């Protein structure tokens, strides 16, 4: 008891000193803000509240409330949010006419507002601390998606991050998709029904340099990414249920390409979870 008290006091002292030298700064609006001891996001909807809770070290009070979650009605397959608010979930036009290899895609929030800034901070400014918050938020989404009607946990056999080409990996210094699930083995071990689920960092390999997808239209994205991926030799995906993880879902070209490789190698089913998706297909 006394030990924890000393530890806690020391931690408070350390944190106040750290905050004095490295004040908390909002990654979205660049304003400085103060660490809060008690969180006051109780007034928010559950999804928003969780977001605000987890991002409280990276976003200011205002920005951490500035979040648009993915809400019904959505496309049952690709998770696209529909504009009309009062219908039920159904398939979107694209998924009806030419469904891809992916059986199910979901995202945490709309690629907009503070979430967009957080992803930018992570990807382009190397603020890897953000991945900790996003990782936990994405795990909450995972739990939500893989719980059936009888409240039983189920889940995929293998979780794979979308890989980076070697050169890009070294340029960036990290793979943001892998950072999102780096801590998951710990969580999954405690989740009944998921004990066998594996997170494999290099299951998929990107074979060649591809230009950034951002700024390209749908057609170009598809041709840009065509044949970029292959399966790692030591991984066997036959009859397996695979979950792909990425940071942004725009047209789905990248994850579709990954899914195609996986299906070709005999995967049973490929799902996708991303941190964010654009509110319309193909606009990033």
């Amino acid at each position: 008891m006394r030990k924890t008290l000393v530890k806690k006091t020391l931690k408070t002292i350390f944190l106040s000193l750290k905050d004095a030298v490295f004040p908390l700064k909002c990654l979205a609006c660049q304003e400085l803000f103060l660490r809060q001891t008690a969180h006051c996001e109780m007034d928010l909807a559950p999804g928003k509240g969780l977001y605000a809770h987890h991002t409280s070290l990276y976003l200011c009070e205002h920005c951490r409330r500035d979040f648009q979650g993915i809400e019904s009605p959505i496309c049952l397959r690709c998770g696209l949010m529909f504009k009309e608010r009062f219908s039920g979930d159904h398939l979107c036009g694209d998924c009806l006419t030419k469904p891809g290899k992916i059986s199910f895609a979901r995202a945490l929030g709309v690629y907009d507002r503070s979430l967009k800034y957080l992803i930018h901070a992570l990807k382009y400014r190397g603020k890897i601390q953000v991945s900790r918050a996003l990782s936990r938020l994405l795990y909450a989404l995972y739990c939500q998606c893989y719980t059936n009607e009888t409240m039983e946990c189920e889940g995929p056999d293998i979780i794979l991050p979308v890989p980076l080409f070697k050169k890009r990996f070294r340029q960036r210094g990290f793979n943001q998709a892998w950072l999102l699930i780096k801590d998951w083995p710990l969580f999954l071990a405690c989740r009944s029904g998921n004990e066998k689920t594996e997170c494999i960092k290099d299951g998929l390999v990107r074979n060649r340099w591809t230009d950034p997808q951002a700024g390209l239209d749908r057609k170009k994205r598809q041709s840009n990414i065509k044949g970029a991926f292959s399966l790692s030799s030591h991984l066997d995906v036959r009859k397996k249920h695979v979950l792909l993880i990425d940071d942004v879902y725009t047209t789905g070209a990248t994850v579709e390409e990954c899914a195609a490789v996986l299906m070709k190698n005999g995967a049973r089913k490929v799902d996708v979870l991303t941190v964010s998706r654009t509110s319309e297909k193909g606009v990033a």
Partner: protein
Amino acid sequence: MDIFKNDVYKRPIIPLLFSYILGLVLGGHVFIPPFIIWVTVIACLSFTGYGIFRKQTQHLVPLILFIALGLLAMQTALVRENKPDYPVCFTEKGLCKIKGRLVTSPGMNHGRQTFSLDVSTIEAPGEQARKIQGNLRVTVHCNDLVVHKGDVIEFVSRIKPFRNFNNTDGYNYKRHMAFQDTWARAYGKRGTVRLLESGQTGFLDKARTALERFIDEYIKSSSQASVFKALLVGNRDQISPDLNDEFKQTGTAHLLAISGLHVGIVAGLFFLIFSFTLTWIPALLWHARVKTYAGILTLFPVLVYGLLAGMAPSTQRAVVMVTVILLTWGLGAEHDIINSLALAALAILAISPGALYGVSFQLSFAAVFFIILGMGCLGNEDSDILKSRAFLLKKSLKSYALVSLLAYMGTLPLLMHYFNQISVVGLVANMILVPLMGFMVVPLGLGAMFVYPFCSIAAGALIRLAGMFLGLALDLIHGFASLPYASVMTVSPSWFEMACYYLLFCLCLIFVSAKKKDQAGLMKGALILTGILALIFIGDIFYWTHARFFHADLRVTALDVGQGTSNLVEFPGGQCMLIDGGGFTDNNAFDVGERVVAPFLWSRKIACIDTVVLSHAESDHLNGLLYILKHFKVKAFWFNGIWKPSKSCDLLKSIVEKNNITVLSVKDFPDHWDMNGVRIQVLWPPDESEAGLAYMKDINNASLVLKLSYGEDSFLFTGDIKKKAEKAMVKRLGDELECKALIVPHHGSKSSSSDLFIEKVKPEIAVISAGYKNRFKMPHKAVLKRLTEQGIDIYRTDLGGAILMTTWGKGLSVDTVLTGH
């Protein structure tokens, strides 16, 4: 309280820094027993500890804590004077045997070497050797002695305390030295200094010497080599005074300091190298630790470079700020640049509280603070993505010009205060020279420095290339400096005026920023405050204009110039007359004109002197005038018509000729004339031939004697006349000699101030200009006795500092700088 918390502690270091500075300033002026401060510190600490335990946020207590810490730091730096084991305790004990280790490299100046000595023992005559703490400032008068930093030497000398020149401009030399833990000075005579053991030079000293040798080897031009030494290893000693002046005149002296640019280049280069190397380790990539470790590894070269460069305040600032930025990668945290700047200031002041009063500290922080603040307020905040190249170029050029402007505006009052010189061409010169030095010379030079240990040929090629650009830069600086009106001399602004200026500048920036962001409330507030401050500022200007040009009183100030004489007369209506300028025997050792008289004049807002009077051509009256004649606007020069064959005289003649100053000597003066109600008479010498012929034996007797009368009051300036001249004057002039205030002849020497003379003059007050405990033992006891017996009030510059005499023509009021005398 919430507003207080949110706004004040957003950048937590800033309130703490200001509390600490407040403590430091207070500590320099009031004495609070250390016991009380310690109790406060402990109370604050326990209160904060309790607050953390109870999870309450602290607001006021940390501020009080830092004020107390500031007080403590300043007091411990300043009260060591009274401790018994300091060299200053030996000042009355005659010739002492002093042993100690050099803590600075000796600076050479015209056959003198000056260095700081960490004293280990002092042996006073008839006493045992005692262990001593603290430093001693030592000057050695010989060329052939070779000593280095770290050597242990022994010599015999008297120990003298430092003494300020107590004039109203307030420069505190004693305090300046006290911050270096130095309270006294000593002189080592030729042949008495013995080298006991050669010091061990550390790795850094060796590296520095090796680099300097490398620079000398490859750079043939001495001026370029000296600038490279300043730029790369922080050694500014070898830059010639003329070159230094050119840098100052063009406002580019900051380029010689090792600052953020240099440290930033070193950090950036090593960070790139480390992060590139570390990406070859896959484990680091998967754990995203590349930048973390690269950041931590980069700390080492940054620190080593900082130490190598001599850790001047600007270097320390840059090292602290770069460290904070590098650690953000390791801690996964953010940094705020103003907060980091404040942290750097706090760190520097914690280590050496005296830095607060240092010029380089103040300039460096003022420039960086205003660049950051200004760019935050005025800079364009639009994101750069999806803008055309032309737009980006225009934008970067604009922000580039803005940085120069902000640094210029931010340091302007400090430059006026310390150097009394502002560069007119500075803005333009900086815009050309900063990129030339910052993007070409410094990176190439640093590159050469880091390549040197591996390949001296490549390093030589790099530094030669850098030398080409540096040559161009120096030519440009020379060109800018030789433009007419490249720089102007200015009077000194007071601290109050500087504070007004800075507040006004900040408010203007805030106003512009608020206008841009459309914050009406802030805009209004800033506008009102700006208005009030502007009014105060204008009021201050009116006050000074009145005090300087529209006063109706006659003011005479006898300056404290050490051993020597200098008097300033301010006539009603603002005309000024400087009678003698003091001076020591060698201006190279200490220029009284530059260091004492000029700062005093500038602080009185005097940049133009109507008349400079030289009573006679001896060094203790003349040497101080050289700087004044050279740097001030002087209309007329009066003297007794006799040039002494000496270097100083020749120099003075050439300056007077060059600056087209009207020269008047004895034959040119009318019997008497009137200056705004003040009657001026030249009483002595009677004519040039008599002065020349009869008094050639003793130039003192040819001193120009001036009498100023204003209403009932009158002043007699006697120069160095002796008995013979006194007698002759009494015979010639009789009762005309009578006056209220007598500037006692020849610093109170016993060969002057004869009974006959004093009885005729019948002064009410006598002013004696002499050095504190001077070696001539002036003023002489007999003279003091004589004056006291006559019931005359005696004022002495050696005891009372500068003596200010004011009259409206109906009675004299006298004031001294040091009270109690």
